[in-house]
């Protein structure tokens, strides 16, 4: 899957939940959203290419959520 495209989509999710005052809750919600709505190949692609994704601009909050996913996998 195209990593820059996934980064854009993931950052959009992050921007929505960043309105939560509680950052930890936001991180959980982002991870939960990716888990519930992204096909595994999309999740795997971003988890396995996290360094590239961060270089492409993945926000720190979303990166933290992706690490949670990678840890669960």
């Amino acid at each position: 899957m195209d990593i820059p495209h996934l980064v854009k989509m993931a950052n959009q999710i992050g921007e929505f939940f960043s309105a939560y005052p509680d950052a930890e809750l936001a991180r959980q919600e982002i991870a939960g959203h990716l888990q519930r709505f992204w096909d595994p190949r999309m999740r795997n692609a971003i988890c396995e290419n996290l360094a590239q994704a961060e270089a492409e601009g993945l926000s720190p909050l979303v990166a933290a959520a992706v690490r949670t996913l990678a840890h669960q996998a």
Partner: protein
Amino acid sequence: MSLPRETDFGTPARESDKLVTLSIDGIEVSVPAGTSLMRAAQEAGTAIPKLCATDSLEPFGSCRLCLVEIEGRRGYPASCTTLAEPGMQVRTQTPKLAELRRGVMELYISDHPLDCLTCSANGNCELQDMAGVVGLREVRYGMDGKNHFDCHSSLRQPKDESNPYFTYDASKCIVCNRCVRACEETQGTFALTIAGRGFDSRVSPGESQPFMESECVSCGACVQACPTATLMEKTVIELGQAEKSVITTCAYCGVGCSFKAEVKGAQVVRMVPHKDGGANHGHSCVKGRFAWGYATHKDRITSPMIRNRIDEPWREVSWDEALNHAAAELRRIQGEHGRSSIGGITSSRCTNEETYLVQKLVRAVFGNNNVDTCARVCHSPTGYGLKQTLGESAGTQTFDSVMKADVVMVIGANPTDGHPVFGSQLKRRLREGARLIVIDPRSIDLVRSPHVEASYHLKLMPGTNVAVVNALAHVIVTEGLVSEAFVRERCEWPSFEMWRDFVSRPENSPEAVEVVTGVPADAVRGAARLYAKAGNGAIYYGLGVTEHSQGSTMVMGIANLAMATGNVGRLGVGVNPLRGQNNVQGSCDMGSFPHELPGYRHVSDAIARGLFEDEWGVTLDPEPGLRIPNMFEAALDGSYRGIYIEGEDIVQSDPNTQHVEAALRAMECVIVQDLFLNETAKFAHVFLPGSSFLEKDGTFTNAERRISRVRKVMPPLGGKADWEVTQALANALGHPMNYRDPAEIMDEIARLTPTFQGVSYAKLERLGSIQWPCNDAAPEGTPTMHIDEFVRGKGRFMPTQYVPTDEKVNARYPLILTTGRILSQYNVGAQTRRTANSMWHGEDRLEIHPHDAESRGIREGDWVGIASRAGDTVLRATITERVQPGVVYTTFHFPESGANVITTDNSDWATNCPEYKVTAVQVLPVTQPSEWQQRHRRFSTKQVSLLPKHEKAGV
């Protein structure tokens, strides 16, 4: 023999707690206060003669045929305009009344041609019936006096045949005003009037113009109301009166109008809106009533076809060969590339039973969850947003609820074009005095039309919905307009506090966001106060809400507003998504999304999954599958290579056409099941003939969750209904499916889906239609949701931070393009383009504001190039102030327009619903079609040449 006529009560039903008892011809009858004598008599079984009265219209009292005698009163009052009173003694038939009525009929007939035997209304003419009822035996005045029918008469008007669907023959007009009143009361267009005075009076479209040149929207209400052959369907003139009628449901928009299909054998003569239809109450629009000829259009492809590559000729084969070939290809791809390398798309134009079977095929037979539907590109944010906040992915009301609304807020929807029958009902309510707020970048008709004017039109810049909804919320919270008692009782208080604190921030005030939204702050404040203090405030919204990068956020913002003001859970209020397609609600209900089983249960829910696993005898994948845009990405990276598409044209309807085309070209097996060789089928390897709504049984579910029967009136032209094709494909893949009819499929849906538990064909037969949830708690359905508590228990407020879209204007792309649809055409146009509806809209045009046109040297009708970051196309320009400076607009009904060549693959953050409504573009005059259009023309010509010879002739 003609069809039996429905009982016509003459005047509309009245609602009242008070009953009035009177005597009619010695029979005692009790009716609600406000009921006419005419209706009361019919309730008692007595049909009083009438011509100008019909129960869809308010009484008019002009024909003088319905006279009655009332004990103790002088004269002969008209029974249509005289209300029932307690103790009245009414006589409907006396020698004097008979004499008066015969006299009236004599006058009518003296100016009416006596060509009954050759008249198109023969067998269905109320004038003829009344002449018989009153016992007319002679016309003492003769037929040689001044009249409108004699070919030598100076009063005779030529027959108006300008409308493609009906004729207007003034010589047969009895000036009953029913057509004029239908245009006003039922449709709300006010296109008709009576021109002239006295004997010269005749019906006049506009200012005595032909129908096609008037404001008439061709809804046909006037034709239906006409008691003679004055206004008559051309199909009836051509074919004669029908011999039977079948009640079915329209296959166009999400209003889901009920129709009587009047047929002879297997030939449709006309479609008549069903008076008892819960969504439409006997009204319809130009599409539903008239635009059904596509079903038998010569372009239909009725034989299965296969080919190995898309540059090869199609080969007509048997159903068995096509299905076995498709099955072998799908299994080969899975064998080579894994279980998840194939998937399917269900159709929101097909029935519930058919969409259910396609998702079952994908989940149970393909063994993955790669199933999606066109709701992805329209209302998927509604599903997400309402589930998160209210707990159910559906609108909260019935359409009739609007008649109890005090303030109606219409956001990003154009009901008079997109959902015309609801649009008419809404206008009726507005004429009664309800106030209107419109939030839309364009001046849609509702903003100002006859007898309707919006109190506020928040003409925002496309892409700033969330900023506006936050500003509305800011006013409601900071000015103390929250319904705190409702929120405390019905909602999660901590979520409310979080939302309240968020929207109260100064950056969300109307004054702060004005620079972004373009909406004056005082207008936002006024609109917020009006809605919050409404009494009953109802919100209706459409794709102008959902098709944005923040579509889901906006849906949640709307739900937040409704909860904060206590506008949920009763008649007259609510959150009402206006669904685009006839069965988009149903296709979502039936588990068409890759993450949800039927009934909106997540695939990771082991208990729900277990139900289906037990029923289907397979193990289901607990992981969500690919959504349509993800399928394209996966096709381009090689992990997704086979797709079964039932009744959807993704190449024309999905954004960034060139990206979609590239994805389809990358796939090894594209199976298209459709009526026509649509744009997607040009990239297909297997074509399976689909069936129209006239050719099969099933159910559709409309925007108000109303499940209605679709009934077969003609055999499938390709030999199989769509559900039979999917079933045969499953069998070819080795998974037995042996449903005998769609009723059995619905029984399975009911067994597995709590909200459908009480639904059956037998109950639908009895009730006519059912609004889900229908179960033990609500055995006859649920018209209004969330009455005592929200489906999720407590309503949940969600924060809705405004995030500007990435699709920004700059010097290179200085304008914003937004897209929409028009009354006469429907979505990709596959159906309506193959009807005379194209007389109203024969091409997609680009609407541009005069300032933007002038600065570019663009004149009305010029060819203009529209370029975006995704591509470019060429359309003709229409210069109009409906759009604001900086914004251009087009429809997307014609494939050669390439509207979606320009739209980008930006999408909603939660659902990937494409951002059709915001594309940065430049518009400049040009002299030739775009490169894509030239390529598309060559490709389409080539694809048609690859069809079998007899099919080419038609395409």
